């Protein structure tokens, strides 16, 4: 897709550790247009945050090995100098983080932190920057922004802190906004407000948005496209309508089945995905999801030997990485829709393969 604002091609981010190579991101590709929202979904340790930090160039100075291409308006950020990426960071692309309390500096006022962000990229007086910060705080819905601007983060409530983070991220009118689990640390009631705010601001600013989450409910509300990640790879990629209407990967089915839905009748228990995400050092052979998959018996033993390529399904622009035939997937999904629990659904998975490796997921995510 030429002309895409953000184009990621075969992105790989590996970390060398004493225990081996952590393949945090292993061949991820996607693209994003202005004004569109991409949801990246996956369990912790699936490489979502590492991907977004890679786009922002926040792996500079760490031992990350990054290959592939990240094209922001045609400029390859993987090859760009750290100084150039820093120039773009905060101005052309901005990021908001999971926990607004720990992401804001406790010793500086909200205003000082927003003003700092604005003045890095804009040569304006302190007075003008302050006025800009007050406007921004007002726009993200902070009451009495002219006085609250001098508050410290600990004087704000959780939702207000996230609003302030958003104001900071928007201070330089970024064309790309990455929200890494923006609502995870917030109250349920506040979550909806923050999501609405991001949605409103997107239509107002016209920026492209990447929302990273493990919560399908969040992307259902906001995303135009969805990228489902598993063990650093793309499991499924398509429009939100396709992913929710006609999901084509057993992992996505698992995610959907483990999510409570209000629009369906309650048919019984939520079905969890058995096991835990794999170690990114010893990624299972073949399809990384196979130790936890219910359908491996249907592919004639290819699942644990061959890595399934990301192939387009029946709908154009909708792709999944699975060895099951398209017909088989349609049959299994229909069966699930009718409330049939797949065979062996509550059996434990083979231990060892699916357990976490010696490197904690936290180290990779951080």
């Amino acid at each position: 897709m030429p002309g895409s604002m953000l184009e990621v091609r075969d992105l790989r981010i590996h970390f060398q550790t004493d225990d081996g190579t952590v393949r945090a991101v292993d061949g991820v590709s996607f693209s994003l247009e202005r004004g569109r929202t991409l949801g990246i979904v996956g369990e912790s340790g699936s490489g979502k945050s590492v991907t977004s930090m890679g786009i922002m160039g926040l792996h500079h100075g760490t031992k990350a090995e990054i290959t592939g291409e990240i094209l922001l308006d045609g400029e390859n950020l993987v090859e760009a100098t750290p100084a150039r990426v820093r120039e773009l960071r905060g101005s052309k692309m901005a990021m908001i983080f999971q926990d607004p309390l720990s992401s804001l500096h406790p010793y500086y006022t909200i205003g000082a932190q927003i003003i700092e962000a604005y003045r890095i990229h804009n040569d304006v007086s302190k007075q003008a920057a302050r006025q800009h910060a007050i406007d921004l705080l007002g726009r993200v819905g902070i009451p009495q922004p002219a006085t609250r601007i001098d508050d410290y983060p600990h004087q704000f409530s959780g939702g207000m802190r996230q609003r302030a983070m958003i104001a900071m991220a928007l201070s330089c009118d970024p064309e790309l906004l990455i929200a890494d689990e923006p609502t995870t640390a917030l109250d349920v009631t506040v979550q909806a407000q923050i999501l609405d705010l991001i949605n409103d601001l997107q239509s107002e600013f016209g920026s492209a948005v990447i929302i990273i989450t493990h919560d399908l409910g969040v992307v259902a509300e906001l995303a135009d496209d969805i990228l489902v990640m598993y063990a650093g790879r793309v499991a499924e990629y398509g429009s939100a309508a396709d992913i929710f209407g006609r999901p084509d990967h057993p992992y996505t089915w698992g995610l959907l089945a483990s999510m409570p839905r209000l629009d369906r009748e309650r048919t019984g228990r939520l079905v969890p995905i058995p096991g835990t995400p794999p170690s990114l050092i010893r990624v299972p052979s073949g399809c990384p999801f196979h130790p936890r998959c219910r359908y491996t018996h249907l592919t004639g033993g290819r699942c644990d030997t061959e890595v399934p390529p990301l192939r387009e399904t029946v709908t154009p622009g909708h792709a999944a990485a699975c060895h099951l035939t398209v017909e088989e997937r349609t049959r299994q999904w229909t069966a699930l829709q009718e409330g049939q629990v797949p065979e062996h659904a509550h059996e434990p998975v083979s231990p060892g393969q699916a357990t976490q490796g010696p490197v904690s997921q936290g180290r990779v995510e951080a």
Partner: protein
Amino acid sequence: MIFFIIRRLITTVFLLLLVSMITFAIFFLIPRLAGQTAYQLAAQYVGRNPIPSEIRAVEAKLGLNDPLYLQYGRYIKGIVAGIHYNSGTDVSYCPFPCFGYSFRNQQPVWPQLISNAPVTLSLAIGASVLWLIGGVSVGVLSALRRGSIFDRFSMGIALAGVSLPVFFTGLIALELFSYKWPIFPNVHYVPITSNPLLWARNLVLPWITLAFLYAALYARLTRAGMLETMGEDYIRTARAKGLAERKVVVKHGLRAALTPIVTIFGLDLGLLLGGAILTETTFSLPGLGQFTILAIQNQDLPEIMGVVMLASFFIVIANLVVDILYAFVDPRVRL
């Protein structure tokens, strides 16, 4: 804030009173518990080959036979207001703040004490500036280049610095830089008022020696603090803004890591102002540390008491200052 300071000032006064009680009890009761009479105590004020009538006169003048609470009351009154000693014929006035008379030369303790203070003050302030700058910058660099040769080397030196006593490093420094290569020959104290250049030059070696000990400690503390704060989420936020790395480190990382350092610095400085005994002795600096050593060698109880009271005053004040400072350094602290 104002109320906090007032409250802390009141507690500080009580704390100092408590310290004075304990000190008084120790130094005035222990000789008596050991069987010394007031007469024998008084004899110490008179010098060699005393005449009994002289001793009696001193005993009466200082009221050494009075009950403990009276003597303590007199001691406190002397400190806060000065006191008249009157035994009919012999009248003398010990001006505020009166810490009694020295056994050694029958002079009031306070003026002698205070004449030694500038030496210690010069030593402590100079050394503390050195170790704060040196220790913190080495600590920051070590943390940023964790695992590098610089980090290992400087942390090795820091370990040596923490472990080696001042009388060892000080003597090495003297041997090398005062005798072998006489860059700083003839180290002795010159008051800053008489010759500032000579004052500084003669203090360089003691400053470095004392600062080395503390710089090592501060380098390790800073390194640990920086490693912790540089991993915080707000550092990632600062980088995500596009802030230059140097500013990320100094304005966001160091700013947060410095808070506990400020606390410890205040307390260390307070402690040091009471006398750096080892450094002063090694370099023959006539400061409060030397005063203390002499007082102990002479078993000069009033002098020891005076120095103990002064040192604890510095420590208590340092605590107060640190507490108040904390509210300015960390806005989350509500006073």
